[in-house]
């Protein structure tokens, strides 16, 4: 095994990635080695570059390769709307949908009764500062429809200065069939019904 020590180390590291275990990591590494020129080398270069440059945006908390991310530095996105999300993954999900043209603010978590995560652990003071500094007219609370997510949403709404605060709707997902929905979702959907 001594001759494959480096490969074993790579497999071990890959196996720590989300969605991968030792078996799938071995398959991935084997695939990379077979595609050395067209995949492995460019991937290694890209990883090295990102490892050296990736950082949190000082303004919104998004991940980018500059101190200020592309969204925050784009003047066209200064629409006066600010979308508050829990995590960078949520920001990226919103961007994938491509419907929101304003800017974001990443909290970095939610208030949690169980884990004793309080307001001081989240980026709420920075959010309040941004509302004034960037002349924000509407804050959209795009937090998860969970107990922790909505507890955080209510807390933030209490902390904000005089600004319109909205939140994402909760209810039947696109393609969802009522028969398969949990009663909580049906209750939320019924409460948020609209004229047709």
């Amino acid at each position, binding site marked *: 095994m001594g001759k494959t020590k480096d490969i074993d180390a790579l497999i071990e590291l890959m196996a720590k990635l989300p969605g991968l275990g030792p078996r799938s990591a071995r398959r991935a590494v084997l695939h990379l080695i077979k595609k050395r020129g067209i995949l492995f080398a460019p991937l290694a270069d890209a990883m090295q570059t990102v490892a050296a440059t990736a950082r949190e945006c000082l303004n919104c908390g998004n991940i980018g390769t500059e101190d200020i991310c592309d969204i925050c530095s784009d003047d066209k996105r200064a629409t006066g709307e600010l979308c508050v999300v829990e995590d960078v993954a949520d920001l990226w999900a919103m961007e994938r949908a491509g419907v929101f043209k304003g800017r974001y603010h990443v909290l970095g978590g939610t*208030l949690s*009764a169980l884990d004793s995560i309080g307001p001081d652990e989240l980026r709420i003071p920075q959010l309040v500062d941004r509302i004034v500094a960037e002349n924000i007219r509407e804050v959209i609370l795009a937090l998860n429809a969970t*107990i922790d997510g*909505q*507890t955080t949403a209510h807390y933030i709404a*209490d902390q904000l200065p005089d600004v319109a605060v909205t939140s994402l709707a*909760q209810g039947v997902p696109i393609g969802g069939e009522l028969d398969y929905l949990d*009663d*909580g979702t049906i209750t939320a959907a019924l*409460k948020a019904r609209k004229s047709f």
Partner: protein
Amino acid sequence: MIEWREDGALMAVRKHGETAAIIEVFTKAHGLTAGVVRGASSRKVAPILQPGAQLDVTWKARLEDHIGSYTVEPIRSRAAQVMGDALALAGLNAVCALICFALPEREPHPPLYQSTENLLDLLGQNDLWPLAYLRWEMALLQELGFGLDLSACAVSGATEGLTYVSPKSGRAVTEKGAGDWADKLLHLPPVMLGHGDAHNDEIAQALQTTGYFIEHALATALGNRPVPPARARFLDILHRQSRA
């Protein structure tokens, strides 16, 4: 293989690995019991596993001291009822956090379980449940051996005019019995004796008194663990709403 099946209220959910979760369920016969739920992050199971939900759970373990695993079926979700209501949401968080904070694992507390289930069913009915929450906190203290004795004055034995609670004994004291010690005693609002209109400001004042015993008696007995901040957040919202 050890196995039991019971209805219970979900008190806590923690992610465990990529797809599983460790949940804590409060049941009548088995108390607060933790267990692993596999596939907890799936679209089907995740909405069920919201704190406060009433579940039909089956707990299995090979040995008694194993953490065990749960299979869960929803009975009723309470999350959707409270998500739009800051006070109810804060109350739900406070109940779940206090149960996890105060109760030892796998120790049945049937009266407290019944009181908890009744309280959770009232969440969202804002004219009823703050008072039910106060009664629940008093029941929690009682169940864990720190119950307040509000039947008669600790000094004179009088049963009328009770206005204070002794922070040392947890017993009621009258204005006359308090004498010069009044400023060292805790308030005993009429709502704690089952009198009056039970306005939220009075309930908030009563919760300051129960909070003293949670912090100074219960938490001390639990090794000076800090009281979950969810309770303070709930009290803050209750104060603000009662002033508005």
